[in-house]
């Protein structure tokens, strides 16, 4: 069995990890790094519950080998905001009831956070488009849209406050 050592920055922290090449990135995150906020929901790269940010770009971590992250940066839900200070997207999901069972939520929030970096003032349709790779069975999506818009408004207010 081939084991390789890789260097990955995980939520801002450099880590040295040993992986077998076939170990999927999602399993590397959950089992080797012990971070279970990233979830597994399907076996055909369809649901997006496993979404993480790879160098800031949202990707499905179930369709990436852990070894491919060597030299790169991963952000998981645990790295979205800090325990004491939530990311506005996390706050927005709570404020606007954007989650019910919570299983799709980490992936959904990371995709939303990446969207807001690119597009700070998305329309409803912009949001629906951006999250069309993340499936949710509980919410019917409408409150997720509202959650992302709540976050956008908060981030805009924060930017105004900073520049004031």
């Amino acid at each position: 069995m081939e084991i390789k050592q890789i260097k990955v920055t995980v939520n801002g922290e450099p880590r040295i990890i040993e992986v077998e090449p076939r170990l999927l990135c999602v399993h590397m995150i959950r089992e080797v790094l012990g971070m279970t906020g990233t979830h597994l929901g399907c076996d055909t790269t369809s649901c997006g519950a496993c979404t993480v940010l790879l160098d800031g770009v949202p990707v499905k971590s179930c369709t990436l080998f852990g070894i491919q992250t060597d030299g790169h940066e991963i952000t998981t839900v645990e790295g979205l905001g800090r325990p004491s200070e939530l990311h506005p997207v996390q706050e927005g999901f709570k404020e606007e009831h954007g989650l019910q069972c919570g299983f799709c939520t980490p992936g959904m929030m990371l995709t939303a956070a990446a969207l807001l970096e690119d597009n700070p003032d998305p329309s409803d349709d912009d949001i629906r488009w951006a999250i069309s790779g993340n499936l949710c069975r509980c919410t019917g999506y409408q409150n997720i849209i509202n959650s992302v818009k709540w976050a956008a408004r908060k981030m805009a207010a924060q930017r105004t406050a900073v520049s004031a």
Partner: protein
Amino acid sequence: MYPSRFHYEAPSSIDEALQLLSVYQGEAKVLSGGMSLIPLMKLRFASPSAIIDVNNIPGLDDLYEDGGQLRIGALVRNRTIIRSDVVRARYPLMASVAPQIADPLVRGRSTVVGSLCHCDPQGDWGAAMLALNAEVVAVSASGERRIPVADFLLGPFQTSLRPDELAIEARVPAPSGQPFGVYHKLERKIGDFATVGVAVFLDRSGSSVTGAGIGLTGVGGTNVKVSAAEEVLVRGGVNDDTIGEAARLAAEVAKPQTDQRGSAEYKLHLVRTFVTRALQTAIGREPIDIRQRRFEDVGALA
């Protein structure tokens, strides 16, 4: 869910990659985007003994116009195509295809060249590249080959790439006049494969058509090029008669199967309908469009 074991190689140059390809003698698969290969490996429909990951090779992710061609490196992601000003301005067919592939997360990794090499009959880029008369550039120890896409896509998951060759680029001829292009894809939801896909390209100078291309998805063993219709449009321009003829010719070469996405009859009808609608749009008529949400109106960045 769990792929079989494989040897993992991560070459840092094209030469290294080529050496590895010859060492593994066809037992290795090249990994670029991975959005088609890795799902197959997870279901164990593919169990290559080695993976050659080309994502670390510099210089393969360039997208630029040069020498009368758009040059698309092997690692150019669909996300990059969507964000590209030059594609938006001068390659409208590509700008129409890219957002309709899979979903935004998959588009962040998947590549144009990878899609052509994977050669899924349901692949969207094959239809577009056939319509655009593109070519694939393949290198090996014995040199470089430039393969027209029509000669590259042979059958389901079969290309004319040799086991010792690496595809490093796709090249699309630059438009000489006013380019028109649109991809009509009927998918039951975002992320589904096309029930039917029709790619239409026109290069025009005034009302005369200097170049035309029609490519189809999901209606044959591989993407289908409707060369006969292309000739009709170049000869006769775009009008009611040529539109009808083009639609008829497209349905003639399409060979769809009845499956859970629909009957063969329905798919042929869609081929005719989409060819017609695309060409109607080209001459300023607005075909029926009942969509409540249009991806063209979204500030799509992925």
